[in-house]
């Protein structure tokens, strides 16, 4: 048996990391306890781009982020092995690129620099307090796209198939399909079909990223990825180098197999910052002239980003900040009334400086109520989490969103504290409420209210119906000192469509300006910074 080539080894490692990524993704779901049992945000913890930009924008370091320094160190020694061997999006790009059989045209020689300009722009925005890196960070992008689009679509497709077989009720076929369906429900499928606003849009964007591989293999990694650019900069000092012996007769075989724009055929012009250490050039070399090792000397292939271009990217990023901040939504007391943030979220300004829109909280939300915003929080807040109680309320005994947040935008709170956090307050629409508007009994909001002392209380009244007959019933009222804005009442209100009781962010703990009452209810934590 022949020895394993480096390329084969790399593919195995890539497969293992992709499997780990998917495993942790699937585990980002409650099984009934208030902990998950797996470090589901591990890939985000290792991500130095998220670490650096959060540090710049929010001046904060979250505990596990030190893990990303391991990746920094690794890159400084071995180069962009993360891109070539680990990154789940890189591996998916490889897979998508293998669909293209035709040899691609040589890439535009300058395009590889684009990602550095993207990086500089993102660093500038974060330096001035706007955190947009998560939108383009490959780990965040992949988790978000899987959580909000690909996984729900997969679940829908699989469930529809098994539902169809169930309805057909065929002998032999249906019993076995049901057994298989049972097994899938216990392993790969979500407990409940997830539904996400913008799922289609976010899914199309991700499929677009994969489709770019048909234009140029690893298009995203070569030209766009800001994390790749950051690691590229770090790899300039890498000790692992590529050497070409004198056997090389410049046949050019390596030029076509390079996964990036590292110019392997250029010998001394090889660009270490672009090399993904995929070792394709080593494996393909007919003279076996290429080798990777701890070699001396520095490679000649520079980046030549151009001072003007770097400055322009920096100022573009910096200018984006005021442009994004002129929305009235960013002003105190002018935020969207329905912008209900997850429990333990920082104050809005600090929240936006920290949230990387990775979608972990939306994936883990046990009721599915956490949804990505579009413009509710301004363009600056694109794809940040908002609770939509009608889809799912905040489960009283659950703290999972705070546990999976990689940047502390949603603080990890002990359950007793979380149960005191006010997301907002409920309000009753008396024009729609059955006991108020229609002389019809209903107490569902009171029944489902989870606070130990119910925040909804009932008043016994006698009202008259159209014929003037007295009807004895109970009318609900909200007690603002007890209401935490979880939205259970809104979720279960039987008034279809626009509910007769609904939550707004008025009174949310995290904002001093959003308090309704002169005296903040006792026993509740002070607003978060």
């Amino acid at each position, binding site marked *: 048996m022949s020895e394993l080539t480096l390329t084969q080894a790399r593919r195995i490692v890539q497969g293992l990391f992709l499997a780990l990524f998917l495993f942790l993704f699937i585990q980002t779901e409650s*099984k*009934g306890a208030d902990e998950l049992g797996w470090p589901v945000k591990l890939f985000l913890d290792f991500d130095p781009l998220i670490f650096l930009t959060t540090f710049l924008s929010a001046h904060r370091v979250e505990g596990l982020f030190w893990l990303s320094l391991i990746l920094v160190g690794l890159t400084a020694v071995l180069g962009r092995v993360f891109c070539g061997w680990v990154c789940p999006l890189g591996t998916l790009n490889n897979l998508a690129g293998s669909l293209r059989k035709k040899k691609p045209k040589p890439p535009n020689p300058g395009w590889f620099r684009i990602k550095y300009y993207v990086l500089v722009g993102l660093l500038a925005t974060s330096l001035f307090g706007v955190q947009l890196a998560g939108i383009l960070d490959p780990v965040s992008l992949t988790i978000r796209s899987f959580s909000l689009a690909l996984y729900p679509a997969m679940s829908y497709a699989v469930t529809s198939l098994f539902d169809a077989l*169930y309805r057909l009720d065929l002998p032999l076929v249906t019993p076995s399909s049901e057994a298989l369906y049972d097994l899938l429900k216990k392993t790969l499928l979500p407990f409940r079909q997830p539904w996400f606003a913008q799922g289609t849009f976010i899914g199309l964007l991700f499929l677009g990223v994969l489709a770019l591989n048909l234009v140029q293999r690893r298009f995203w990694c070569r030209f766009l990825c800001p994390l790749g650019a950051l690691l590229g900069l770090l790899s300039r000092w890498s000790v692992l180098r590529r050497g070409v012996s004198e056997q090389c007769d410049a046949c050019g075989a390596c030029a076509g197999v390079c996964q990036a724009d590292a110019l392997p055929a250029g010998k001394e012009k090889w660009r270490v910052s672009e090399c993904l250490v995929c070792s394709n050039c080593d494996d393909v070399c007919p003279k076996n002239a290429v080798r990777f090792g701890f070699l001396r000397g520095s490679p000649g292939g520079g980046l030549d980003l151009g001072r003007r271009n770097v400055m322009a990217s920096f100022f573009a990023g910096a200018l984006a900040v005021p442009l994004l901040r002129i929305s009235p939504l960013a002003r105190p007391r002018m935020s969207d009334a329905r912008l209900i943030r997850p429990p333990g979220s920082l104050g809005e300004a600090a929240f936006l400086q920290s949230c990387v829109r990775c979608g972990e909280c939306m994936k883990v939300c046990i009721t599915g109520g956490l949804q990505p915003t579009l413009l509710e929080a301004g363009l600056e807040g694109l794809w940040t989490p908002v609770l939509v109680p009608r889809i799912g309320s905040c*489960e009283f005994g659950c703290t999972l969103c705070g546990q999976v947040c990689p940047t502390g935008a949603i603080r990890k709170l002990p359950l007793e504290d979380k149960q005191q956090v006010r997301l907002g307050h409920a309000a009753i629409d008396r024009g729609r409420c059955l006991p108020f508007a229609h002389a*019809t009994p209903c107490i569902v909001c009171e029944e489902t209210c989870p606070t*130990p002392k119910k925040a909804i209380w009932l008043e016994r009244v006698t009202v008259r119906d159209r014929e003037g007959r007295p009807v004895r019933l109970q009318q609900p009222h909200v007690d603002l000192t007890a209401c935490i804005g979880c939205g259970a009442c809104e979720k279960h*209100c039987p008034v279809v469509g626009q509910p007769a009781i609904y939550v707004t962010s008025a009174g949310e703990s995290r904002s001093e300006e959003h308090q309704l009452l002169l005296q903040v209810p006792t026993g509740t934590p002070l607003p978060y910074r």
Partner: protein
Amino acid sequence: MKRRDFLKWTAVSSAGLALPVGLPLLGHVAQAARGPDLVVARGASTPQAVRAALDALGGMRRFVGRGDVVVLKPNIGWDRAPQYAATTNPDVVGTLAKLCFEAGAKKVRVFDNTVNDARRCYRQSGIADAAAAAGAEMVTMDSRKYRDVRLNGTALKSWPLYGEIFEADKVINVPIAKTHSLSGLTLAMKNWMGVMGGVRFRVHQRLDESLVDLCRVIRPTLTVLDAVRILTANGPTGGDLADVKRLDTVVVGTDQVAVDAFGTTLFGMKPGDLEHVRLAAQAGLGVMDLSKLQIKRIGV
């Protein structure tokens, strides 16, 4: 039970509804010779109280036969730990499951259509663990398995109900006793809301009648009311230990209306205080007059 059998079953049961109301009473007379109508067992050990209550009623073998598939329907509607008395005591459920197996049951299946997330409710209530320890299956309810059932009631003409309670050989209702702002209390009859699909919160507009309509078609083999802890205020969700009262009691009977009638006394109320109990007795679905019931009280 296959789907066709199920349809037959509903047809037969609907026909049965058209018969005069004397039939259940005849059964009641027959039963008087066999022992008490209700057993109220009290004891610090919940498993022992449940066992003693069943023994006094003639043993689980009287109700469950060899090879039976038994459904236990506790109240697991809320995400609360057992000490809050918002969900059926797990020891009651676990002991009943064991008794079923001892009587020869092939399978014991446990489920409830929860209001809070089912994963959390099943686990936090302690019922998932108790069921697993007894060898019973915790069933995650499957939205495809609700079927429109004709109720021909005064409030509900038909409603999607969980098919399995009609397919099982034996059904045991295992409610907990709690307050409820609309029905007064939630006991055995109200517990059947946990097999309703559809937009079940709509039935609150005519709740008492709806509960009676449900009980026209859902006739459990046995009803075991858990009053180990009862929730005396802020029901049905609870959450404050100050609202919980420990009674260490279980009430067992075959007539769920009678069980509910007795259940009111645990809260210092009278059977007639619950409109749905009154209506159910009126419809001949059971007996609410406690003086007409043979009630056996035992201490363990």
